Structure formats: structure tokens, C-alpha cells
């Protein structure tokens, strides 16, 4: 029992330490982002578009595939119930609301956390182990500006765009399945979809995506920067990065959904 209390206490203290470190990293990232965005030469050196490309374009096939399948799965699931009461025409509205408000931002963020956040940790952690980060510091180059800012700006631009595309792809998947297999008329589908889709659904999804992108990049980079030792710690940190960003994304999602629609 004493051990359990000790373990919980230690874990809580470590959690608070991580939280405060992530806060300082976030503050420094914002300050250094301003330096980069305001300086033309440094902006060019940071190769921001390459980051958007690496995070966004390379995640696109996976995000689109999962979104299309998600749209179809949602349609299949609810069609069983709605068919019984003759309410198949409610499917477009249901899928659109579910996807744009909740599933699209959440699923996209979880995919990107697994694909990109883990890569941030592994890459930065490996650099820490091979003393590349120490080398940057001895050259008086701010590691946050050099390593975190470009990833921060890249993901904050890429994730909302991916989320938007994921939303439309999921609805399109549902539209194809609904019109070909369930007999919902395409024009009815479009009309029902547009009837329920509010501007608020779109911007709440975008706000969620921006918050999730900050969560992914901050946790991913922080976990990389605190790697000590060797390859084993890089692996452990990468695992922790995915686990903690997944948890944080779901927590933030719940809070934001409640705030927007509660």
C-alpha cells in the first residue's frame, strides 16, 4: 500500500514536471516562431513548406483511406437501425454531423500523432543521443528554433487542412455507399448534407485540429528533447509520446466538444 502511494505520488510529480516543461517549451516555441516568421532569411532557411509537405502530403494517403472507410462504416452501422423505421434519408445528416464535429478531427489527429508525432520524438531523440543537439547549442543555435519551430508551423498548417479533407472524404465515402448500396438518391444526399452542415461545424473542427496539432508537436518534440542515454530510451520516449498525445487529444476533444455543443 505504501509502495502504491509512493508510486502514485512519484508519477504525479513527474506529470507536473512534464506539464511545466511542455508549457515552457510552448512559450519558447511561440517566441522563436515570431523570430522566424518576421525574418525573411531565417524563414527561408527553416524550409517551412518542406515541413508542411512532409507532415501533410505524406500523411494524406493514410488519412484519406481511413476517412473513406470511416464514412462507409458509419453509414453501414446506422443504416441497420434507420432502415427499420424507414429513415435512410437521415444518414447524410448524421454522418456529416458526426464526421465534421467529432470523428474527422479526432481520427485525423490520432493518425498524425501516431505517424508524425512519433517520428518527431524518434528523430529529435536520436539527435540528442548523437550529441547533435549539444552541437547546435555550442554553435549558439537555439535548438527550439532549429528543430521545433518548423515542425510546429508545419503541423499547425497541415493538420487543419488534413482534417478538412478527411471530413469531405468520409462524407464522400458515405455518399458512394449510400447511393449505390442503400438506394439514397444522390440529390437527396447532397440536400440533406447541406441542410445540416453548419459553419460552426467547420470552424469547431478547425479549432480542434489546431489544438490537436499543438498537442502533437509539443509532446512529440518534448519527449525527444528529454531523451537521455541510448537507443532504448529513444524507443521508450517514442512509445510515451504516442500514448500521452493520444490521451491528451481525447481529453482535449471531450472538453472542446462539451464547450462547443454542450
Amino acid at each position, binding site marked *: 500500500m505504501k509502495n502504491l502511494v509512493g508510486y502514485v505520488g512519484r508519477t504525479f510529480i513527474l506529470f507536473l514536471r512534464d506539464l511545466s516543461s511542455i508549457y515552457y517549451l510552448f512559450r519558447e516555441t511561440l517566441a522563436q516562431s515570431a523570430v522566424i516568421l518576421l525574418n525573411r*532569411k531565417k524563414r527561408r*532557411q527553416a524550409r517551412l513548406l518542406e515541413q508542411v509537405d512532409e507532415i501533410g502530403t505524406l500523411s494524406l494517403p493514410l488519412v484519406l483511406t481511413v476517412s473513406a472507410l470511416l464514412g462507409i462504416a458509419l453509414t453501414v452501422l446506422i443504416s441497420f437501425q434507420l432502415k427499420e423505421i424507414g429513415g435512410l434519408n437521415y444518414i447524410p445528416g448524421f454522418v456529416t454531423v458526426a464526421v465534421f464535429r467529432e470523428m474527422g478531427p479526432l481520427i485525423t489527429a490520432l493518425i498524425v500523432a501516431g505517424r508524425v508525432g512519433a517520428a518527431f520524438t524518434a528523430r529529435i531523440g536520436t539527435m540528442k543521443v*548523437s550529441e*547533435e543537439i549539444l552541437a547546435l547549442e*555550442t*554553435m549558439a543555435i537555439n535548438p527550439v528554433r532549429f528543430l521545433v519551430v518548423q515542425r510546429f508551423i508545419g503541423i499547425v498548417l497541415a493538420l487543419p487542412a488534413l482534417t478538412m479533407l478527411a471530413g469531405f472524404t468520409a462524407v464522400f465515402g458515405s455518399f458512394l455507399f449510400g447511393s449505390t448500396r442503400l438506394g439514397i438518391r444522390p440529390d437527396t444526399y447532397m440536400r440533406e448534407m447541406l441542410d445540416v452542415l453548419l459553419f460552426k461545424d467547420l470552424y469547431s473542427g478547425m479549432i480542434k485540429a489546431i489544438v490537436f496539432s499543438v498537442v502533437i508537436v509539443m509532446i512529440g518534440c518534448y519527449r525527444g528533447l528529454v531523451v537521455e542515454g541510448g537507443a532504448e530510451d529513444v524507443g521508450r520516449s517514442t512509445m510515451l509520446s504516442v500514448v500521452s498525445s493520444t490521451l491528451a487529444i481525447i481529453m482535449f476533444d471531450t472538453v472542446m466538444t462539451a464547450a462547443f455543443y454542450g
Partner: protein
Amino acid sequence: MIRAHDIKKTYGDRVVLNGIDFIAERKKITYIFGTSGGGKSTLLKILIGAIKPDAGEVLYNDADIVKLSGRELDPFRRKMGMLFQHGALLNSLSIGDNVGLPIKEHTELDDSIVNIMVKMKLELVGLRDFEGLLPGQISGGMQKRVALARALALDPEVVFFDEPTSGLDPIVASVITKLIADLNKLLGITCIVVTHAVDEAMRIADKIVILYRGTVLAQGSPQEIKASSNPLVQQFITGSPDGPISFHASSKDFREDLLTK
């Protein structure tokens, strides 16, 4: 002048540095020896401001860098270069970009001028043709030479070398040693070298500092070190396996260790 004064550092219960005191004179070559795991790398990291000692001062021309942190250290770091033991090149950047990185970061020079400077630095270490390759595409020895070119990119006043010749073939090792001597004699760069290579140190050092069990065992010119009557110093410079310095690092009695559960 760089002065380490009463530097102390512990990791947990292990005392790594216990009152290190020495002066590295300006425009001179200072070599630091010590047994493996004897705190040489820790001392080097303290000297460049990468880690803080538990106590003591590191004075750069009377300014104590131990008291500085973050950006306050930048003006000092711009005047220093560091050659890491394994190069520590940025693996995602080409050789040329690695060498050009500090120049691009700290000057407003045009890219064409930066490119010329990069070529000059790479020529200095004999690797001008390798500019476009990635660090992973060249050997470890070459990486070290590129790292030296990068350390020299901003024409520093002081360059720190962490095991500059370890893992290199004898010819490249000699070239690096000659480069260190030339940097000092021709360009007046202060060099502080951490190494195991006694012969190399005896040949070019102005001063040698020997660390043993976290303290300075001896310091002086190569001649003074050679003439020392201290058996520990003599074992260091002859590299003899027999002598007062034990090969075993364990503190616990071997017999006792085997017999206790």
C-alpha cells in the same frame, strides 16, 4: 585565458570532478589527459557551458560562464568551436550545409559567399569534393574532419577537441594533430584538447593537465610532465599496465563481491 577554478561535479553518489583547477593560456595548446571514465568529457562539457558544475567557476577573460545560462552564453559560444568525439554532424544536412550552418545562422552573408567559405573550410580538412554528400555517406574519420571544418567555420578564438584522433588511421590522426598545431601557430587559436594520445600531446602541447580520480594529478609543460617523479604521472605517460593506477574500476573487493549473496 580560460580558467577552471575549483570545479566540482557529482552524479548521484559518484564524485566525478573534485576541485579541478587549471589555466589554459590564450593562443596556447592545452592537453587534458585522464583515465577512461575519469571525468574528462564532463569537464569539457562544463568548459563549454553545456552542463553546470555543482561548484566552481569557469572564467573566460574574467567572465564566469557558470553563472550564465541560455542566451547569455551565446556571445561566448560564438567565439568558440567544438569538435565532438563522434563529430555530431547533423545527419539530415549535407556536408556543405553542416559546415555552412553556423555561418548562415550568425552572419548576414550572401549564400554565394557562404559557399566560398564552406569550400575554404572543407579544403582545410581535405574534403572539398564531398560537399554534397550526407554525413552517413562518408567514413567516421571523414565525419570528424568535417566536424573540425564546422568548428572552424566562424574563425573561433578557442576550439575544444574531444578525442580528436580516436578511431582514425595513423595518417589521418597525424594530419589532425598537425592541423591543431597549425591552427594554433598560424591563426593563434587557443586549443583545448581532451585525449588519450600521449605521444601527440608530448609533441605539440604547450601545457598538459592530467586528471586522476576527479582531481588534477599534475600540470605543466611536456618537459615538466616527463621529468615528474610521481609514479602515477609516469604510468600515464608510459602507458604501462603495471603501476599504482589500477586497471580495475570496481571499488568493492573482488573476493567479497563473489562470496556475498
